[in-house]
């Protein structure tokens, strides 16, 4: 069951490499948050109570509900329905996304031989998700899409933690959550400002501070 969930997590990110609709991005981010919640529930009994409840809250309330709602508010505020003109055309994104996704399985195979303590499938999917999230950040022009890429990165990091069964102290987990929540708030605030200043929140508008060698 957890393998199916992990693969579903990866398929979601692969789908994002093909799409340009903001609504789809947000749906995939919410879906990944829910999958992470289910994977945490799977580990019930293997981690201490406090950590379990914290991680369950983080994945269900924060990653599945709060973050997608905040992202949706940004989309509404900036009136960006889709990424119309990415740096890399749609076909190129499909090819790159597929290659990266399949490479994830090669990583899975390598990790299963290198370190048996790691959940190799989840590790491979997390790595390919990270790479595709980076690809989205670099290849898309809309700032809101880049924020989506950042949140996908955060989901990939959460899957990586589950794959490696690395437990951080509760204090650190709490701090990380607080930081990312505040960061989302700042993104919301500044994207709103950018929208009211430039009308179009695209990376191409942010070029007034460039230097010439």
């Amino acid at each position, binding site marked *: 069951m957890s393998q199916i969930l992990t693969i579903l997590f990866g398929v979601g990110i692969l789908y994002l490499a093909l799409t340009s609709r903001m609504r789809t991005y947000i749906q995939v981010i919410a879906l990944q948050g829910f999958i992470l919640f289910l994977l945490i529930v799977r580990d019930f009994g293997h981690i201490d109570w406090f950590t379990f409840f914290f991680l369950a809250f983080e994945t269900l309330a924060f990653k599945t509900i709060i973050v997608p709602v905040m992202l949706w508010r940004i989309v509404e505020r900036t009136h960006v329905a889709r990424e119309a003109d990415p740096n890399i055309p749609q076909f190129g994104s499909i090819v790159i996304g597929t290659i990266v996704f399949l490479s994830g399985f090669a990583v899975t195979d390598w990790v299963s031989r*290198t*370190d048996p*303590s*790691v959940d190799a499938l989840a590790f491979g999917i997390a790595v390919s998700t*990270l790479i595709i999230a980076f690809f989205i*950040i670099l290849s898309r022009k809309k*700032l809101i899409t*880049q*924020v989506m890429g*950042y949140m996908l*990165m*955060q989901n990939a*990091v959460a899957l*990586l*933690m589950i794959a*490696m*069964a*690395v437990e*951080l*102290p509760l*204090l*650190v987990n709490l*701090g*990380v959550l*607080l*930081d990312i929540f*505040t*960061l989302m708030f*700042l*993104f919301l605030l*500044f994207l709103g*400002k*950018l929208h009211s*200043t*430039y009308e179009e929140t695209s990376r191409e508008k*942010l070029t*007034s*501070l460039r*230097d*010439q*060698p």
Partner: protein
Amino acid sequence: MMIPILLVFPLLAAVPLFTLRSRQAERSVLIAHALLTAGAVLYWAVAGPEEFIGYFRADTGNLLFLALIATVYIAVIPASYRYLEREKVSELWHRIYVVSMLLFVFSMTGAILASNLGLFWVFIEATTLASAPFIYFERHESSLEATWKYVFICSVGIAIAFIGILFLALSAKGVCDLFYTDLIRNAPQLGRFWLLFSFPFIVVGLGTKAGVAPMHSWLPDAHSEAPSPVSAFLSGMLLNTALYGLYRVFQVLDAAGLRREAAIFFLICGFASLLISAVYLAGATNFKRLLAYSSIENMGIIFIGVALGGAGIFAAFLHLMAHSFAKTTLFITAGNIAHRFGTKDIAGVSGLREADRPTGALWGIGFAALAGLPPFPIFISEFLIAREMVTQGRFGLLAAFLLLVTLVLYGMARAAFKMYLGTAPETAKREPPRLIEWLPQAILLLILCILGVAMPDAIRHIITAAGF
């Protein structure tokens, strides 16, 4: 008891400031916080190490960084007052400035005091969040652009560092937690593969925050758009804070017998920073951006010193301290120059020596301190780094180092002399500068001069201990 007081004070003080609505109260809180920070540093220097709930620790390893926070903080407060007064900021933005300052210093102090790498990450991310309002403070289109780049690039960078920390945690699984002392003590037992695998992520992540090339792109924008006292803080302290965490991880790799591999990453970043700053300084048209590129160069020199090891470590931390003082001086002075001439363009400033003698003198002497002219400590640190290269027989590195440092010096000197000499434009304000506009910088330069001529043993001990 100093650690909890130092950590709780800014948080508790920030809340009532929003209800009191008194500029006097806001200023008093800032002064109290700066004096408290300085008092805590003196206390730890005299009374020895202190630990708090196992997650925070003040000892000789971080005393230099804490002392720099305190010194730069005290120097920046008068400049902040003057800036807020000159710009006639509204009550709300005055409060935002003061609260952001409290939270910014809190997050940097927390990062330095954190004895756990995960907790360090939490505080280093918090520095980005706390300083974002500063960069947007002047609310121009360009400040908005700089703020967005700063927040987004640093957050992505810090997320990459977190991935590295997870790999490091995997290497320590079953051996120890992410406490620096445990990691260093148990370094030979850590999984070598995951430990080495973690390092590039941590270098890229924290290197982004430390402003080293090729992850530096946010730095010139943020430094040039922030108010000058804040630029002083960003350059004089924030970069050091990121470097602190990076150096602690470097020490873990060193203890695990992976020094050579770790040094390669530091050397690449160090020389890339020198190259980028040499190229861009030559064409810089804005004197705050000029200082920002100089920060990239100096962080590069510090990385090179650490990578070399031996006397290079002492040189790196001496350089770090001297750079913080010199850059604080120059950024605050740059704010005064921008006010007097009404521009940040190098082309719009000339005749500093006649238009404003104290500011002109600070600009000239500050430039000499930053350029590494004797008797200032940067001369000693750069000399020690060059000597270490000779000792290790790395003559290729030495040639590249000397060439790039000379190119940077040329780029800096060209602009500094142009601004200092010549005739001041008619539009330049002629009123004499107030004492608080130049005294803190003059004291910093005097301290630098004393350190360069006859460094007290206590200071030498603090610098040496930072490397161990």
